[in-house]
């Protein structure tokens, strides 16, 4: 379902943005990543005096829910819409409809295909983030012959695919390489990830590298490895940069996580809409909001930050 959250309306503060109304549509309302986006947006809207309406789909892949949300926002006559599209083509029709009404549409986190279907995109380059994770894990292995297990998210998710492909690229192997011992879809859920890892370990106790789609999956993988006493032989990499994830890295549960910056996406996106609403140039193009490896065991040739820095800059 599509859901409303009129957090804004407080027009007492802020400069120049008063009267601007913005809609935010996330994939779901449950994932901490999107919760962070919504919270940041609400806070920023308060500061700027922007009126915000936050809506979401019901599950990953709920194009219908996102389209309904778009329709509602168009009906409300907002100035701009920020959306994290379920997949790169799912809501193009509704986006087109919105832009035809003069609404600025900005993609966050996930790019559309074609990219210029929206006015601008503020996102992590997930291919690059995956590459960073892969490169780090490979480097951390040193001379060891790689034996990799991959805990994916959802089959066919745009982000999932970019991260997966990026990881393999950074890791330096191809899809189907013998070094890949097994892959499972975990829906990014800790319980599923733990179960999958437990079952995969039965067959592959000699694993030494683990790719995880996000930090809950990494926690699940760690729990399964810990139960088997295998944590020392394995390098786990992850992506997200949530505070709990960074803490896990600090606690030595996994080697590294690649931090992304959802708050940046939201803030830059909102700035762009406000500017366009004020008669400025509409924003355009793909803006990479960056990603960085967080680890306390830096490796040669890969830029990274410490967990201390990470805990200051994490989200969620």
């Amino acid at each position, binding site marked *: *379902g*599509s*859901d*409303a*959250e*009129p957090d804004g309306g407080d027009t007492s503060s802020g400069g120049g943005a008063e009267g601007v109304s913005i809609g935010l549509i996330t994939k779901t*309302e449950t994932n901490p990543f999107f919760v962070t986006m*919504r919270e940041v947006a609400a806070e920023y809207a308060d500061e700027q005096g922007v009126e915000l309406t*936050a*809506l*979401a789909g*019901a*599950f*990953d*892949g*709920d*194009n*219908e829910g996102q*389209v*309904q949300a778009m*329709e*509602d926002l168009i*009906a*409300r006559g907002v100035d701009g819409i920020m959306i994290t599209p*379920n*997949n*790169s*083509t*799912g*809501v*193009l*029709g*509704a986006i087109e409809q919105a832009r035809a009404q003069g609404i600025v549409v900005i993609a966050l986190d996930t790019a559309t295909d074609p990219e210029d279907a929206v006015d601008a995109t503020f996102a992590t380059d997930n291919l690059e983030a995956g590459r960073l994770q892969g490169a780090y894990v490979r480097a951390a292995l040193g001379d060891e012959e790689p034996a990799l297990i991959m805990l994916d998210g*959802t*089959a*066919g*998710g745009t982000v999932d*695919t970019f991260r997966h492909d990026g990881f393999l690229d950074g890791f330096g192997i191809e899809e189907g390489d013998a070094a890949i011992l097994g892959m499972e879809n975990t829906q990014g859920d800790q319980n599923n990830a733990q179960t999958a890892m437990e079952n995969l370990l039965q067959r592959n106790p000699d694993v030494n590298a683990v790719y995880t789609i996000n930090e809950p999956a990494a926690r699940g993988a760690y729990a399964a490895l810990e139960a088997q006493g295998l944590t020392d032989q394995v390098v786990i990499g992850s992506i997200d940069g949530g505070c709990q994830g960074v803490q896990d890295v600090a606690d030595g549960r996994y080697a590294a996580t690649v931090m992304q910056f959802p708050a940046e996406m939201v803030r830059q996106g909102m700035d762009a809409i406000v500017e366009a609403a004020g008669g400025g140039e509409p924003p355009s193009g793909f803006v990479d909001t960056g990603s960085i490896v967080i680890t306390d065991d830096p490796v040669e040739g890969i830029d990274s930050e410490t967990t201390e820095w990470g805990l200051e800059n994490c989200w969620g």
Partner: protein
Amino acid sequence: MSATSESGAGAPPAAVVRRERLGRALRNPVIGPLGALVIAIVVFTLTTDTFATVGNASLILQQSIVIGTLALGQTLIILTAGIDLANGAIAVLGTIVMAKHVVNGGDPLLALVLGLAITMLLGTVSGLLVTRLGLPPFIVTLGILTVTYALARLYAESRSYPVADRLLRIWGEGTTVAGVRITWGTFLLLGLFALFWFMLGRTAWGRHVYAVGNAPEAARLTGINTRRTVLSVYVAAGALYGIAAWQALGRIPNADPNAYQTGNLDSITAVVIGGTSLFGGRGSVIGTLIGTLVVGVLRSGLTQAGIDNLYQDVATGVLVIVAVSLDQISRRRAAR
């Protein structure tokens, strides 16, 4: 012992009070859900100023098309004391088959036929497993659900397929009446409900569907071909899911293997709110249409009322329960 004439004279053992028409109307099982719908509409009309517009009404109808068609197939199956967990998945596979064929340069008409064929095939397989092996519909359709989503993803190669073809998108087009856009899909939805309302209420097939759901053994003993009846229902439902797939492309011209994951529970909800019994043999498609609209109105109305995200979930949960309570209370009244 020649009481024929006497009973012909019609003094019934229990005096029949002649307020039949009203009584019959009040006992109509659609009264409850209809009351819930009316109350919801009135409440949102009074509490928000954006809800009660013709445009919004048309929007709610459009948003209800796919779920409505899925719920129609679901109603048929539930009337036979079955349940279908796979309807969303089947429709999704239908959209993929249609869209991929066109994206790969195939003929749109053939794409449509292929899509409908696959959904009917899956309906038929479910029906055969239920009727031939005597398996519980819950398990059969759970299996089909898992398999179908996997097949959809495999066949889609985990991609989604945008559709440009006009034929496949036809139900998203429409006409503008007095400034309000009404899609052809809306008319199709209403037409399908009318068709099955007629089929269930006015044909021998419909009687058999109710009989098989209400008392399967009695139906068998009276010489109804229960297997064929149940199978026909699954095939018809499969066809409806194919039409739902077509409608889905009209609404969102992009076939995504991850879509409509809550189609099963959403459609069952609409059916149950509409007063159809999950134990089979009692209920109506008109109830389901109303049930679908109740859900649509709640979602739209709560959004218009600007109710916060999570509180909206709370409100939806509570309101669904209230809607069905109304039905229950009206039934008890009638039973007195």
